[in-house]
C-alpha cells in the first residue's frame, strides 16, 4: 500500500512537470473548466443577491395584512374600517397602550434608470412614523424626515444609486404633482431601499385613494402571535384579510427569480458536457504523449494503479485550477454588481450580485466533476496500456 502511494506521488509529480510539453491542450482544459464555473456562479450569484435583498427585509415578529387572495401588496386594498379593527387586534406589541401599526399604500411612479435612460416602475409608498419603526435598520443618512401633510419625500439609497433625478433637495414631478426630496434613507441594503417614502394621507388625497390603504404592518408580541391574529381575522367577517409574517411574505417574493437558478444550472450542465468533451481530448492527448514514460515506469516495476492515479490527479488539478480561476473571475466580475429588475410588487428591486462561500464550493464541485469524468477514461487507458504497445506509440 505504501508503495502504491509513493509510486503514485512520483507519477503525479512527473505528469504535472510534463504539462508544459502539452501546454495548449492543458490550458484549453483549464480555460473550459473556468468558463463553466464562471457561468454557473454568475447565475447563482444573481439569484442569491436578489433573494438576500428581499428576505433580509422581512422580520418574523412583524405581521403583514393584505386583502385575501391578493398575493402581493400591489393588488390589495384595506379599508379604513379594517385598519381600525386591526388596531384593537390581540397579541400586538404595544407602546403606551398603542400598537406599533402602520397602514400603508403605494402608487407606482416612473423613474429614469441610469443605465438605460428608460422609464421604470418605482413604488412611492405612503406611511407614517410608525412605519419607519417597523423597518429594522432604518436610518436617515442624509437630510431629514418628510413633514406629514406636505409634498415631501425621502428616497431609498438604492433608488438614488440606480435612478436619475432623486438627489437631495431636488424637485421631482410625477404626472401633475411635484415633490421635494428632503432625505435619503438606508435600511441596510434590503428591498425597502428601492422605494420612495412619503406621508400616507398626502398620497391618498393626491392619487384618489380616498381613505383606503393596501397593506397593514404591525409588530407582534412574538412570532408565535401569528396564530392568534389568524383566529381573530377568521372570527371577524369584516376582515377578509390574509395575515403572514413579513419574513414569510418576502421569502415568497424572493423566490420569484428562482427560475433563473434552474436556468443557470441547466445551461452550465450543458456547457460542462462540452467542457468534458474538450477535457477528454486533452487527457487522451496527455496519455498518448506520456505513453513512453508510462511504459518505462511499468517496465521498471511501477504498478498500473499508479499510472491510473497519476492521470486522474492531473485531470483534477487542471480542472480545479480552472475552477478556481473561474470562481475568481466570477468574483471580480460579478460580486457586488448592481442590477435591478421587476419584483413581485411590479416595481424595481435594486440588488447586488452576491457570491457566498457556499456558491464557491458549488463552483469547485462542478470543476472537480469535470476533472473526474474527463480524467477517468484516459486514466483507465493509461493503466491498461500494454507495455509493448506503449513503447511503439512513443516511437
Amino acid at each position, binding site marked *: 500500500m505504501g508503495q502504491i502511494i509513493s509510486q503514485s506521488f512520483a507519477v503525479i509529480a512527473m505528469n504535472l512537470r510534463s504539462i508544459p510539453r502539452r501546454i495548449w491542450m492543458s490550458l484549453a482544459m483549464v480555460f473550459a473548466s473556468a468558463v463553466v464555473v464562471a*457561468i454557473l456562479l454568475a447565475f447563482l450569484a444573481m439569484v442569491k443577491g436578489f433573494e438576500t435583498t428581499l428576505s433580509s427585509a422581512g422580520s418574523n415578529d412583524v405581521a403583514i395584512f393584505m386583502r385575501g387572495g391578493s398575493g402581493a401588496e400591489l393588488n390589495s386594498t384595506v379599508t379604513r374600517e379594517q385598519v381600525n379593527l386591526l388596531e384593537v387586534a390581540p397579541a400586538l406589541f404595544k407602546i403606551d397602550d398603542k400598537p406599533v401599526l402602520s397602514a400603508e399604500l403605494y402608487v407606482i411612479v416612473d423613474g429614469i434608470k441610469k443605465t438605460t435612460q428608460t422609464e421604470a416602475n418605482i413604488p412611492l409608498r405612503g406611511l407614517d412614523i410608525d412605519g419607519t419603526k417597523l423597518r429594522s435598520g432604518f436610518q436617515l443618512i442624509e437630510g431629514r424626515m418628510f413633514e406629514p401633510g406636505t409634498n415631501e419625500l425621502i428616497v431609498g439609497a438604492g433608488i438614488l444609486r440606480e435612478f436619475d433625478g432623486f438627489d437631495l433637495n431636488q424637485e421631482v414631478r410625477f404626472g401633475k404633482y411635484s415633490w421635494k426630496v428632503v432625505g435619503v434613507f438606508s435600511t441596510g441594503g434590503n428591498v425597502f431601499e428601492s422605494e420612495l417614502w412619503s406621508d400616507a394621507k398626502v398620497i391618498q388625497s393626491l392619487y384618489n385613494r380616498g381613505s383606503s390603504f393596501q397593506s397593514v404592518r404591525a409588530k407582534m408580541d412574538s412570532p408565535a402571535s401569528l396564530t392568534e391574529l389568524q383566529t381573530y381575522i377568521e372570527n371577524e367577517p369584516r376582515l377578509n384579510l390574509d395575515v403572514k409574517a413579513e419574513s414569510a411574505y418576502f421569502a415568497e417574493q424572493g423566490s420569484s427569480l428562482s427560475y*433563473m437558478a434552474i436556468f443557470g444550472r441547466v445551461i452550465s450542465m450543458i456547457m460542462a458536457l462540452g467542457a468534458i468533451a474538450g477535457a477528454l481530448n486533452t487527457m487522451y492527448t496527455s496519455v498518448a504523449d506520456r505513453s513512453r514514460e508510462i511504459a518505462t515506469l511499468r517496465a521498471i516495476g511501477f504498478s498500473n494503479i499508479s499510472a491510473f492515479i497519476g492521470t486522474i490527479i492531473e485531470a483534477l488539478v487542471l480542472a480545479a485550477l480552472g475552477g478556481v480561476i473561474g470562481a475568481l473571475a466570477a468574483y471580480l466580475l460579478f460580486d457586488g454588481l448592481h442590477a435591478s429588475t421587476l419584483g413581485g410588487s411590479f416595481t424595481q428591486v435594486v440588488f447586488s450580485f452576491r457570491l457566498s462561500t457556499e456558491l464557491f464550493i458549488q463552483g469547485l464541485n462542478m470543476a472537480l466533476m469535470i476533472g473526474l469524468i474527463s480524467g477517468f477514461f484516459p486514466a483507465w487507458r493509461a493503466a491498461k496500456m500494454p507495455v509493448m504497445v506503449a513503447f511503439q506509440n512513443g516511437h
Partner: protein
Amino acid sequence: MNDLYLIFKNLTRKKLRFFLTCFAIFIAFLLFGAVMALKGALDSGIEMSADNRLVTVHKTNFTQPLPYAYVNKVKNIEGVKDVTHANWFGGYQGDPTRNQIITFAVDPESYLDVYSELSTEPQHKQNWLKNRAGALVGERLAQANNWKVGDQIPISSNIFSHKDGGQTWEFIIEGIFSAEDKQTDTNYMIFHYKYFMETQSWGGDYVGWLVLTTTDAGFNEAVAKRIDEGFTNSQAETDTSTEKAFNKAFIEQMGNIGLIIFSVIFMAFFTILVLVGNTMVLAIRERTGEIAVLKTLGFPSLRIFKMVIMESLFLSFAGGLLGIAAAYLAVAGLSEMLARFLPNLILGAEIIIQALIYMTLLGLVTGIIPAINALRLNIITGFSRG
C-alpha cells in the same frame, strides 16, 4: 482515391477525438440556438408591434387609470384612426402566483379593429360581440389550457371582487383568436369592458390605457403630441408613445439581468469555439510529416491547402448542424411545455442563418493557420519535424 476520401480518412483516423470535438461543437451550437430563441421570445413584443400603433397611458405610470371620457376625446383628435382601451383584470386560476391567466377587459369591436392582425372565425366573432359574458381567448392560451369554444371557464381576479360576492367570474369561450405570424402574442384573453364595469363591486368608469392607430405612421409623433398636450393640467395627464417604444421600455424593466445573462452565454459560446479551434489546429499540426509525403508525391500545394480547409469546415459543420438541429427540436419541445410563460419561443430562419455563418467562420479560422502552414511547408523541414 479522391480528395473527399482522404479528408474523411484524415478526420476519422482518431475516431474518439473526432467524436469528442464534434460533440463540443454540437454543444456550442445547441446552446447558441436555444439561447437565441429565448432572446427572440423575450424581444418578440418589440418585433411584433405595428408601426402606426400608439399607446396612451397615465403620465405618472402606466398602472394608473385614465378617465373613460378620454376614449372619445382621443377619437376626435386629428390623425387618429381607431381607438380602443383595456383594463388589467389580474386573472388567475387556482394558485394566484403560479397560474396567471393574462386577462383584459376591452371594448370588443374597436379592440379587434386596432389589433387588426388578430383573426377569428366571423361566426365566432359575431357570437362574442353579442354575448356580454363571453370571452375571446388567444390561441396559445387556449392550447396551454386545453380550452375549446363553448367551454365555461372560471377566472379569478387578484384585484377585483364580483358584486355578487367572491372574486371569480364565469366566462363562456365564444371564440379563439390567432395571428398569422407565430411570434404574435396570443397568450391572453379578452372580455367585454361594459360587463366588467357592471359586475365588479367598485363600479366606476375608468380605463387602464388606450391603444390607437394613426392614419399614417408618419403622423405618429404629431398625434402623440396632440394627445398629450390636450390633457396637460388635467387631473390625469397622459404619456403617449409608439407601441414599439412602450414594449421596449417594459422589457427593459426586467433590467440588465437579461443583458448580463446573454453576454455571459455568448462569451461561453465563443470560448467553446476557441477551445475547439485549438484542438483542431493541433490535430492538423500532428500531420506535418504526412503533408510532406503528399507534397513529395506531387500533390500541388493549393490542393493540400483546400483539403485542410475542407477538413476543418467539415468538422465544424458536422458538429454544428447536429447542434442546431438538436436546438430546433429542443425549442419545439420546450415551447409547448413553456407556452404559459414564454409563448413566443421559436427558432427561426434568422437564427439558423447566423449559426451557419458562425460554423463557416469556425471552419475557416481553425483551418486557415494549418492550411497556410501546409501551403508553405518545405518538404525537407516537414520530414525532419515529423
